[in-house]
C-alpha cells in the first residue's frame, strides 16, 4: 500500500517538476496514440460501414477474419511489424524501425479491427427505416454513409474509446518497433516496463497514474461531447 501512496505522490512530483523524460514519454504516447486512433477511425469507419451495410459474397468470411484479428496479441503485431520494418525486412528501405511512425503502424493494425468490427455492428443495428428515409429525402450514397455514421455516433464513440484504450495501453508494439528510446520512442507503457525492470516501482506506478489520468481526461471530454449532442 505504501508503494501505491509513494507512487501517487511521486506522480504529482514528477508532473510538477516538469521532468523532460516524463513529458517526452507523455507527448510520445499522446501523439502516436492519437494518430493511430485517427487513422484507424478514418479507415475503419467506412470499412465497417461497408461490412455492416451491404450484403456481398464473402462478407461472413471477412467478418470472421476481422473478429479473429481482435484477438491478435500486441507482441505478435509488434513482431510482424518488426520483421517488416527491419532493414532485412520487406519495408526496411523506408527506415521506419525505431520511430513513432512504426509504432503508429502497429497500433493501427491493433485498432483497425476494433473500429471495423464495432462500426459494422453499429451499422447493422441501425433502424431499418433509416435507409428508405434518407433515400426518400434525396441523399446520395455518400450522404447516406455520413448520416448513418452520424446516427450511430454514440456507438462509434464507444468503439473509439475501446480502440483508444487498447492502443494507449499496448506495450508489445511500442517495445518491439519503437525500441523504447529515451526522448524519441519511449512511451508511457514502455517507460513503465523499463522502470519496473530497473526495480523503480514507485516511478512505474507514477507513470501508470499518468496513463490513468490521460484515460480519465479522454473519457471526461468524450462524455462532455456526448452531453452536448444529447441536448
Amino acid at each position, binding site marked *: 500500500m505504501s508503494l501505491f501512496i509513494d507512487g501517487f505522490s511521486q506522480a504529482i512530483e514528477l508532473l510538477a517538476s516538469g521532468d523532460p523524460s516524463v513529458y517526452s514519454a507523455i507527448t510520445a504516447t499522446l501523439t502516436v496514440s492519437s494518430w493511430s486512433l485517427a487513422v484507424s477511425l478514418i479507415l475503419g469507419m467506412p470499412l465497417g460501414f461497408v461490412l455492416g451495410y451491404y450484403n456481398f459474397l464473402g462478407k461472413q468470411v471477412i467478418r470472421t477474419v476481422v473478429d479473429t484479428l481482435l484477438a491478435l496479441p500486441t507482441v505478435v503485431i509488434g513482431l510482424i511489424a518488426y520483421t517488416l520494418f527491419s532493414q532485412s525486412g520487406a519495408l526496411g528501405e523506408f527506415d521506419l524501425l525505431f520511430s513513432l511512425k512504426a509504432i503508429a503502424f502497429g497500433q493501427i493494425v491493433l485498432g483497425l479491427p476494433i473500429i471495423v468490427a464495432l462500426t459494422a455492428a453499429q451499422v447493422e443495428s441501425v*433502424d431499418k*427505416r*433509416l*435507409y*428508405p*428515409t434518407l*433515400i*426518400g*429525402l*434525396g*441523399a*446520395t450514397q455518400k*450522404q447516406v454513409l455520413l*448520416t448513418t455514421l*452520424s*446516427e450511430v455516433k454514440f456507438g462509434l464513440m464507444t468503439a473509439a474509446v475501446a480502440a483508444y484504450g487498447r492502443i494507449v495501453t499496448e506495450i508489445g508494439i511500442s517495445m518491439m518497433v519503437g525500441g523504447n528510446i529515451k526522448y524519441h520512442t519511449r512511451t508511457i507503457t514502455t517507460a513503465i516496463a523499463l522502470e519496473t525492470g530497473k526495480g523503480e516501482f514507485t516511478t512505474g506506478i507514477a507513470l501508470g497514474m499518468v496513463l490513468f489520468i490521460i484515460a480519465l481526461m479522454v473519457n471526461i471530454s468524450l462524455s462532455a461531447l456526448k452531453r452536448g449532442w*444529447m*441536448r
Partner: protein
Amino acid sequence: MSELFRLEKIEKRYNGRGVLRIEDLSIDDGKIIGFFGSNGSGKSTLFNILSFVDTPTEGKVFYDGIESKKLSMETKRGIVMLPQNPYLLKRSVFENVAYGLKVRGDIVNLEERVYEALNLVGLFKNFAPRPWSRLSGGESQRVALAARLILKPKVLILDEPTSGVDVGSAQLIKEATFLAKEKWNTTLMISSHDHNWLNLACDRKITLFKGEIVDSGVVNLLFGPWRTDSSGNCEKIFADGQRLKIFKCKAKDSNAVGMLSSDKIRVYQKNDRVSIEKSPLSGIVKTLQIDKNGEHIHVEVLIAEVLLRTTIPLRKMHRYRLYPGESVDVCIDTKSIFWY
C-alpha cells in the same frame, strides 16, 4: 392531362417470394390518388418503387416518359416519400427538417424556410431546437412531413400519414398535405386506413390486395370461415346468425378471402320489393359520405360485425331515405366475388 408515371409488368420479389405484381399502371400529373389495401397488400413496396427508393425485380418504371434508370438525381429528388412510421434523425427538429435541403446543397434562407415548413404543419419557431427524443408521435409525424414539404416536391407520396397520431395532428397533416397540392400543384399519392378522407379527397382510387391491383375503387373483403357443403356451395355465418350463402363457391379452403368491389353491393330500403327476391342480408347504415364531385354517396353498412362499403347515387339516398342508424337490406352479388 399528362401521364407522370407508367409502370409496365412490374414484379417485386424478396428472396423469391413475390410481394408485388402490376401488369400496367399509369398515374397522371397533378392528381390526388388514394391507395387502399390492408397491411401486406404491397402498398409500401409500390410506394418504394414509385419513389425510387427500391427497384422492381422485373419490369420498367417510366417517369415523365423517361425510364427510371436514365433519370437524373435531380429529377428523382422531385419525388419525395413520407414512409409509414417515418424515422427521425437523432438531431434537433430543425436539423431534421433542414436535412433534405442540406443534401441538395440548397441552403439559401435555410432558417426561414425551416420555420415556414414547420408552420405548415402547425409547429412554431420555438419548436425547432427540440431534440428528436422529446417529441410525441403526432409531433414526430408532423416534423417528418415538414421535412418533406420544405422540398416543395413534384410528387409527394404519403404512406399512412395519419396512422397512430392524435386527432389534432391528423387534421393538421391533412390540411398541410392539401396546401402543398394547392401551392405547388404537387401530385399526391396517399395510402390510409381513413377511407373517409381518401373518398373525400382523391381523384382516383387504387386498391391493392396481396400485391396486385384489384380495382380502381373501394373493395370489400369477406373473411371466412367458410363452410362448404358437398354440392360445392359455401356459406359464412355472421355473429348474429345471418347466413351468406354462395352457390358454386370457389373458395379454396375455409380461410379463403373473398373480394368484392363496392358496386357489387347494393342497399335497399328494408323490405323493398326488389331486394326480397334476392334474399338480402339485414344491415344498419353506419356512415354516409358525399364524394369529391358531389354526385355520389359512400355508404358504410354494418352486417353483424362486418363493415361493407358501397356507393350509391345521391338521388337514390333521397329516394330510399337512407340515414345512419337505419336498417337496410343488403344484396351481395356473390357471383362477382374474387377468391384468394
